[in-house]
């Protein structure tokens, strides 16, 4: 019997000792790994996108390329590029030479080509197989390698039987993370305190995996599911290596660290996914239970220390007060989870149009400039995105809330400039991407930009800008 995960090809390569992105030597037909660490310094990596007037397009005649960090643009006819690994789009794929060529139109993975190489390395799976894969496959393959090592059979379908509950039990268990209603307004001298990889860390700390839930009663929880520590779970073992890998890569290569982070982000949701091989709903519920408990612990400690909590979302708190470093230390000691603190000279928490707090949107000044969350969305028109980027730069000059409010005249000037650009802008300014399709709002409604530029609805873009500025700069 052979598990189909890791893929048969990956298992064969493993047996041959020829895993992806390892340096090997071949002597008398024998393959030997010379270097097991991923070293990209000897590789040339390229990304080549073809562009039309509205943005990336397989039929575009211009190109934008990145070869080992070096940016290039030009006419597609002039493109000549050679790389070891390259991702490409449309006609650009015929113009470049590469040992491994990945067509971006077939790519489902939400990471860069470098990120894909990292996935290939950690999942011990050829990059071409992963390119068409979802994050779930990268994660499951990592877990499947642990199962492979333990000689555990992985069925194609794993039927699960959920425990019976009454409505009250369901209501108290079937919940996500804890989200507070933020205090509204601008606040000076706030510290954002984030738990690092909280959900994966919970899975590791409490040994949460389908096979460890209710296997014995080493940890008895209030939600009716218990945990067994007799044997390390498959999911925690796979995640522990990924968490350590991400921490290591942070200082080595942030782009690859981001790719590993994607797998970790998916790891919790996948525990409760119906087709998950190594998860089940009870495991998922345990993770959210411990996450809520952890944030509540942190809130209690903040209260004991007299700190004002401005906001809290799942694994993050914004606090105001003295000795935040001591608070961080105590939370780490009492919860057992790592925290990172980021001081903000000011932060703005905004409301919805109906006046209620909007927990998922905030922006504030950190040492790296103004950080915005839930403000710039992918589906916004390009000129609105540009406006927000310029507004971000403008706001980064304010050192506190009072200074931020005095920027009113500059913000008005910036807005006026963009309202003029609504009239005189380039066609590309009006494009907004929705589910991979570029749209423009014309006088008769939205149309697909791939059919050509057929005019724009000035009033729509004016109102969009005015509405956006009221959200981000409510003091106008």
């Amino acid at each position, binding site marked *: 019997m052979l598990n189909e995960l890791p893929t048969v090809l990956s298992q064969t390569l493993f047996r041959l000792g020829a895993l992806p992105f390892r340096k090997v030597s071949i002597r008398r037909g024998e393959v030997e790994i010379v270097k097991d660490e991923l070293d990209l310094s000897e590789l040339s990596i390229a990304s080549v996108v073809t562009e039309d007037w509205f943005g990336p397009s397989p039929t575009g005649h211009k190109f934008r390329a990145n070869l080992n960090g070096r940016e290039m643009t030009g006419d597609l006819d002039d493109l000549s590029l050679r790389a070891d690994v390259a991702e490409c789009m449309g006609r650009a794929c015929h113009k470049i030479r590469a040992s491994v060529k990945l067509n971006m139109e077939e790519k489902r993975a939400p990471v860069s080509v470098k990120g894909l190489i990292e996935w290939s390395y950690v999942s011990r799976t050829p990059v071409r197989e992963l390119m068409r894969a979802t994050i779930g496959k990268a994660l499951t393959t990592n877990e499947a390698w642990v199962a492979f090592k333990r000689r555990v059979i992985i069925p194609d*379908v794993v*039927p*699960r*039987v*959920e*425990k*019976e*509950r*009454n*409505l*009250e039990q*369901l*209501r108290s268990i*079937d919940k996500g993370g804890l989200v507070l209603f933020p205090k509204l307004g601008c606040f000076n001298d706030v510290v954002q305190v984030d738990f690092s990889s909280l959900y994966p860390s919970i899975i590791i700390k409490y040994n949460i995996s389908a096979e460890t839930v209710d296997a014995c009663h080493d940890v008895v929880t209030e939600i009716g599911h218990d945990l067994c520590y007799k044997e390390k779970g498959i999911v925690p073992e796979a995640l522990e290596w990924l968490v350590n890998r991400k921490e290591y890569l942070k200082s080595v290569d942030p782009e690859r660290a981001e790719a590993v982070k994607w797998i970790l982000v998916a790891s919790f949701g996948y525990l409760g996914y*119906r*087709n998950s091989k190594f998860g089940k*709903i009870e495991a998922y519920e345990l993770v959210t239970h411990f996450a809520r408990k952890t944030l509540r612990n942190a809130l209690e400690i903040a209260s004991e220390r007299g700190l004002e909590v401005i906001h809290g979302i799942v694994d993050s708190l914004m606090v105001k007060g003295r000795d935040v470093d001591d608070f961080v230390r105590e939370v780490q000691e009492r919860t057992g989870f790592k925290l990172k603190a980021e001081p903000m000279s000011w932060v703005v928490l905004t409301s919805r149009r109906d006046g209620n707090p909007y927990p998922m949107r905030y922006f504030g000044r950190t040492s790296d400039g103004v950080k915005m969350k839930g403000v710039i969305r992918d589906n916004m028109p390009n000129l609105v995105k540009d406006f927000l980027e310029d507004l971000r730069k403008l706001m980064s000059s304010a050192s506190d809330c009072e200074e931020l409010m005095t920027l009113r005249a500059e913000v008005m000037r910036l807005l006026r400039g963009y309202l003029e650009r609504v009239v005189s802008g380039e066609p590309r300014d009006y494009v907004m991407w929705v589910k991979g399709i570029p749209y423009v709002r014309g006088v008769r409604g939205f149309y697909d930009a791939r059919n050509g530029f057929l005019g724009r609805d000035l009033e729509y873009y004016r109102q969009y800008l005015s509405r956006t500025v009221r959200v981000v700069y409510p003091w106008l």
Partner: protein
Amino acid sequence: MALTTGFPLLDSLISEDKIVEFYSLDRELLTLFYHRVIAVSSPVQVVLVGERGGLDPNMVERFQRIYGVTGEIRVRRAFKVEDVSQVLKVVRGRL
């Protein structure tokens, strides 16, 4: 016990049937309908088949209050088709 929807006409139509499928293109209507059926059928044991669960305990209790029923509702969810037969086996064993 026959399935109870709380609508006398529907109940008389389905009174002889053991398995009844309700179908609607209107997701919201279907959601309201099955929450109401669960509430008025209580006490009842429910196997809910849905990719994301889809039971709102508050809505069921609201219907129970509206119709003045208080019977206990016990739920198991089947998130994929392969779970259904396994869940039904366990439920049948307990009946």
